[in-house]
């Protein structure tokens, strides 16, 4: 640990509360981890150094805990010096490319949202053993975890946690207008249609940003749509369900949104909620947390709902995956694997420290009641999400062509085009063309 975040000293109520919660929970979590982690790491990793690169978490206190408490305790116990570095999460791919080109850098890399295992697997350490062991120890992995990290039967990454984007809705506005909770997309649309004339539209990003990629996929998949088949080879975007989802999105836009959504980025819907305008949004719980800090009145009335069901009753929540991987060039792979095992075992600690952001891929850790979210009446519903979580490419794996589709925002562009008035058939044709070209290029390569 050459450097760490200075301990939070800001004397505002919110962060003090966060800090107290974090420290209190840290003590409890520490003992829990110690109980779980009965095994002792092998002696040969003593005296080595381990370097980890990851994003900056939503919650500053989480980074504090991770950098200065969690890795330090593990490092002290095993005689390993651990250093944690952070970079902006959207730029992790650039840093990864640089480390690959240099053949040097960190031992452990985090990937957030853009999961690059399939791109880099030839340069990543095979960690099938610890992946399988963790699955065995914690009641198995959720079915969508494997495809994120597995290539040709081997595992090259450890799925650590994912970030949910649930429905966040204003119960007060709904009740005042006799609206039913947004349990289906149809109910959500009716609510937006009713509340927009009263100054409370909704909004989902019709733009090129990470949330747009996630939110429109949730809608598409809940409508029964699919991106590619399980082999990852065939594109399934040209379907009746896609057309239905596009038609629905167009109606949702026309009736319940304003053109602002064309300009939105990942943070815009947070503000929409926090400013008291939005009747509902579909976003990470950071929107909920931001509102807590900036607009307590709205926060009181903001509730979290299950992923809305599509017309067939299906619910799929497309989440932002987070995965840790080990470079093949790392000279300290053994320590890296030991650490990842310890980290995945300590999932509940991470859930506590992250104030409910980090969701576990391991079924054993997803048992009710889960820490933090299980104890908060408004957040309890999040415990039902592990059953319906999906990632890019659903139901297929997150392949390299899907990676490019995501990076070029093809799917959000399809929704945007429809909202702007292009004919659905033209848009599906355009989208299929883009998908096909990208898939073909990767096959050619």
């Amino acid at each position, binding site marked *: 640990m*050459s*450097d760490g*975040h*200075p301990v*939070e*000293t*800001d004397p*505002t109520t919110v962060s003090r509360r966060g800090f107290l919660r974090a420290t209190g929970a840290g003590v409890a979590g520490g003992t829990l981890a110690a109980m779980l982690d009965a095994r002792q790491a092998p002696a040969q990793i003593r005296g080595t150094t381990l370097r980890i*690169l990851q*994003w*900056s*978490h*939503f*919650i*500053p206190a989480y980074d504090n805990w991770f950098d200065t408490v969690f890795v330090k305790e593990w490092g002290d116990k095993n005689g390993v010096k651990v*250093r944690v*570095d*952070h*970079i*902006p*999460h959207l*730029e992790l791919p*650039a*840093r990864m*490319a*640089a*480390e690959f*080109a*240099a*053949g*040097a*850098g*960190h031992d452990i890399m985090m990937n957030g949202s853009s999961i690059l295992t399939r791109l880099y697997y030839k340069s990543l350490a095979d960690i099938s053993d610890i992946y399988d062991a963790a699955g065995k120890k914690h009641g198995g992995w959720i079915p969508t975890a494997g495809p994120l990290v597995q290539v040709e039967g081997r595992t090259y990454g450890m799925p650590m946690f994912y*970030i949910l984007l649930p429905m966040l809705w204003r119960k007060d506005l709904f009740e005042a207008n006799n609206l039913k909770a947004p349990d289906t997309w149809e109910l959500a649309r009716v609510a937006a249609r009713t509340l927009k004339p009263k100054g409370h539209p909704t909004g989902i990003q019709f733009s090129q940003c990470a*949330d747009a990629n996630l939110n429109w996929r949730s809608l598409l998949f809940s409508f029964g749509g699919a991106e590619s088949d399980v082999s990852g080879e065939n594109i399934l975007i040209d379907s009746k369900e896609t057309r239905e989802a596009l038609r629905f999105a167009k109606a949702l836009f026309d009736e319940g949104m304003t053109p602002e959504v064309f300009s939105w*980025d*990942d*943070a815009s819907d*947070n*503000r929409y909620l*926090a*400013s008291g305008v939005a009747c509902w949004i579909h*976003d*990470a719980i*950071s*929107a909920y*947390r*931001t509102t807590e*800090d*900036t*607009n307590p009145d709205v926060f009181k009335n903001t509730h979290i709902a299950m992923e809305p069901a599509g017309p067939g009753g299906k619910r799929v929540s497309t989440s932002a995956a987070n995965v840790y991987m080990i470079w093949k060039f790392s000279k300290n792979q053994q320590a890296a694997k030991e650490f990842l095992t310890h980290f995945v075992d300590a999932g509940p600690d991470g859930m506590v420290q992250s104030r409910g952001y980090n969701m576990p891929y391991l079924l054993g850790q997803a048992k009710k009641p889960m820490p933090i979210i299980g104890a908060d009446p408004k957040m309890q519903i999040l415990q039902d999400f592990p059953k319906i979580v999906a990632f890019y490419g659903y139901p297929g794996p997150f392949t390299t062509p899907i990676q490019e589709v995501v990076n070029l925002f093809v799917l959000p562009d399809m929704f945007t085009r429809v909202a702007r008035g292009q004919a659905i058939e033209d848009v599906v044709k355009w989208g299929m063309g883009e998908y096909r070209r990208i898939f073909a290029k990767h096959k050619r390569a």
Partner: protein
Amino acid sequence: MARAMAPPMTQRRKSIRRHLLIYAAITPYVVIAVFPIYWMAITAFKQDPDLYRMEHFPFWFNLAPTLRNFKILFYQTHYGDWIWNTFTISAWVALITLVTAVPAGYALARLKLPGAENTGIAIFLTYLVPPIILFLPLSRIVAELGLQDSWWALVVVYPTFTIPFCTWLLMGFFKTVPMEIEEAARVDGCGQAGAFLRVILPISLPGVLTSVIFAFTLSMQDFLYGLAFVSPGDQKPVPVGVPTELIRGDIYYWGSLMGAALLVGLPVAILYNFFLDRFIQGITGGIGK
């Protein structure tokens, strides 16, 4: 001459009229340039909820101003390190640029070296290589030099864009110096190097200082190299450190972000004025009046 024919005006009235005209003309520029800066400055001192109240006048405080954003910057991030790194990196880069680009610019502009023209053009063309491609091979070089994850990596890399730029800029400046002046110096007994050091360089000082300022500021504009080569929190320059720790997921720390930009930009603006001022005074009188 037209001016002589104009109706007699007192010196004072003339001066006031002139000033008014100039102020009227320059106001739009100042507004364009400064409005966003003002906005950033005031945002840096606002409480978060104040940012989301559009029904009120947004250019002043609707809630009490706060230092919280700066406290976050200095106590909860590595901002102190970043600002120090940024200025040190920029100073080193400016120095390297100065000692390489000044002689090169002079040689290219004045000495009529065989092959120099093509060398100069080649140096310019390197500017066409987009950093998004360049950073991959450069990361290899940085690693070989053992500089990965140290800000020294950036001291090595930034001159790749400041040298071509400043060399050509200085070439332009050296060309404006009339040959007679150099010739006169040689007649006075200065050697080649003497003429360069004692005559050309002092005359071109505004140009040289301008390129120093540019080397300095260009070093602060990079984002990609800093991102790719430097990840430890205490080694980053400001433009990389700030988005790392002040944009968390989809949460922006607006006030702190803006404060961070201003604290690093304003000193450079002041520096620029301080340096260039004395050289511009007097000389401009010649054309300006």
